[in-house]
């Protein structure tokens, strides 16, 4: 018996590490929930769950697109600016009806995505620079369109922001639906397979005859559209369009959620379940720290530590 146990030990350690990398984020969420149940009063109320879920929804939606970009061995820094652009567009076109406004906002996100994708796929600019350029320009365009904060007074937008179906807020339903759709796309569609192949090795994908450029452009269009949707939902919840501050540092939160969720930055793998858990983990961590009266300074430092630990844990897998 003891002999067996001794022999299995090194193997167990390696397996433990893999398990930690694969499921560490879920364990983290579980630990946070348990700790909160024990320590935070009124944590187990429906009201609290609803608040947390509504707050995590926009971040999660942006993170889904970010996961695809990172899976293709890229990154999309323009997401925060796309949110700002979409909130400007919504408030400008609300006069023509809600649907028109929503469609225009989503088209705006898609246009930025096409620009990102073309720079990356056709010109060969590194994703970080291409999306940086559109991050700077995007917020500028948003502010040109709508120079300052404007209230949204529209019953349809109000119900989108605060309404619920069977007690579940629309925002949460939409985020969950999009997560399922993106997860399905990654696992079950040709586009998903091609995206992962490109992220794994772009030259190999090229040699295998995959439509590399088309797939890359589509990746950034999806990311742009999802960011635009997140911008619309955030404006609906806030009942206002604020292109100056909406979505600032959103790229950071989204990248954190994706990375903490175990998607390697080296591309070729996308973990949608992990991304959802990553977004929830960050949200719960922040909420817990704030609930226990830790100032925002410590919240940010804690987030930084979590990011570094998550990347450190994912390091071995990323190398290959």
């Amino acid at each position, binding site marked *: 018996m003891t002999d067996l146990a001794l022999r299995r030990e090194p193997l167990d350690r390696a397996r433990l590490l893999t398990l930690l990398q694969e499921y560490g984020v879920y364990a983290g969420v579980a630990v946070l929930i348990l700790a909160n149940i024990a320590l935070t009063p009124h944590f187990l109320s429906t009201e609290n769950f609803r608040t947390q879920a509504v707050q995590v929804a926009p971040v999660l939606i942006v993170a889904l697109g970010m996961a695809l970009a990172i899976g293709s061995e890229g990154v999309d820094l323009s997401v925060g600016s796309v949110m700002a652009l979409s909130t400007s567009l919504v408030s400008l076109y609300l006069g023509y009806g809600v649907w028109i406004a929503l469609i225009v906002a989503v088209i705006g996100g898609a246009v930025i995505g096409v620009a990102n994708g073309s720079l990356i796929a056709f*010109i060969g600019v590194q994703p970080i620079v291409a999306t940086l350029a559109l991050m700077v*320009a995007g917020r*500028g365009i948003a*502010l040109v369109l709508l120079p300052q904060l404007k209230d949204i007074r529209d019953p349809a937008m109000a119900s989108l922001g605060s309404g619920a179906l069977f007690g579940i807020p629309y925002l949460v339903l939409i985020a969950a639906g999009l997560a399922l759709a993106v997860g399905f796309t990654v696992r079950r569609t040709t586009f998903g397979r091609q995206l992962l192949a490109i992220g794994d090795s772009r030259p190999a994908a090229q040699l295998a005859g995959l439509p590399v450029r088309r797939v890359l452009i589509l990746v950034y269009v999806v990311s742009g559209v999802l960011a635009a949707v997140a911008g619309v939902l955030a404006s609906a919840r806030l009942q206002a369009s604020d292109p100056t501050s909406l979505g600032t540092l959103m790229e950071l939160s989204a990248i954190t959620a994706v990375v903490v969720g175990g998607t390697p930055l080296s591309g070729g793998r996308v973990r949608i379940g992990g991304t959802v858990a990553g977004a929830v983990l960050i949200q719960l961590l922040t909420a817990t720290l704030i609930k226990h009266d830790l100032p925002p300074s*410590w919240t940010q*430092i804690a987030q930084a530590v979590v*990011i570094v630990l998550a990347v450190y844990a994912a390091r071995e897998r990323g190398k290959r």
Partner: protein
Amino acid sequence: MTAVQTVESESSTFEEEPLGSSRAERLSALAQQHGALVTLVVAVIAASLSFDTFLTVDNLSNMAVSSAFLAVVALGMTFVIITGGIDLSVGSLFALGGVLAAWGSQYGTLVALLLPLAVCGLIGLVNGLLIARARLAPFIVTLASLLAARGILLAVTNEGATTYLVDEKSFFARLGQDKILGIGVPVWITVALFVLGAVVLRRTRFGQYVYAVGGNEDAAALMGVPVARTKTSVYALSGLCAGLAGALNAAWLVSGVTILGSGMELEAISAVVIGGTLLSGGFGFISGSLVGVLLLKVIQNVINQIGSLDSAYQQVVSGAFLAVVVIAQTWLGRRRRML
């Protein structure tokens, strides 16, 4: 230089022609190196012809001082980018440096200068160690330290509620506000740092290591270049530069403004890239970054002068400009096959 420039880390580069063989190639290298300078000259001429107020002493000296802080940050960023890395934490470090300098100025100029340098340099060193020793991706590590530095800033300033002021009569404040020969002290310091930086990059062993690491890390390691130490040093250097720029800025404003520096990393990266340094590493020069900073500031200034235009156009133009420069660079430097 062309030899270094063509070394690309990701794609095969075996079908290289001998360097400088054709005139077209030399022309494209020239355009890459001096394109920003030509654009700057054109922009300055156009601006001074269009606006009477552009070439006034007041306007120019204002522009020089406000360029100085960004330029110091861009100086450190140039070293980082030449090694093929990126440092997103500089904006936060700039703000943190300013706050620490303003707080420290009550204990004298020495503390006001050394405290931000020590703290920001230390954070840069941690960045470097995580990137070089633990082999984590630069942009994620420096993204994390962006958050951490901001957190420290909030902790120091009572969650952003306290703004530390610098005594206007102190030597430290004069460091930011005095003029020598009509030019602000921060500008002189910046010029001195750029000369120093250029000498270090061009004429020292460390500078050659920086190029070698950015050109091809594995080859550099095989040649005996201390890759990890070089990479660690450039991030520490970038942290030092950001901290110093923040301190000088605090001396100029006579207060440690807590909300500064967000988006500064983007400006610094843009300036370096516009100046001709390749983000893929291995190629770049200090003077280009200075030209890049000046170009960005001239564009900002012109847009501010057009009274009817909102300052948001500044961002649109900067972003579009960055895109154009990157497209031009990629086309000019295209020897690698496009995938």
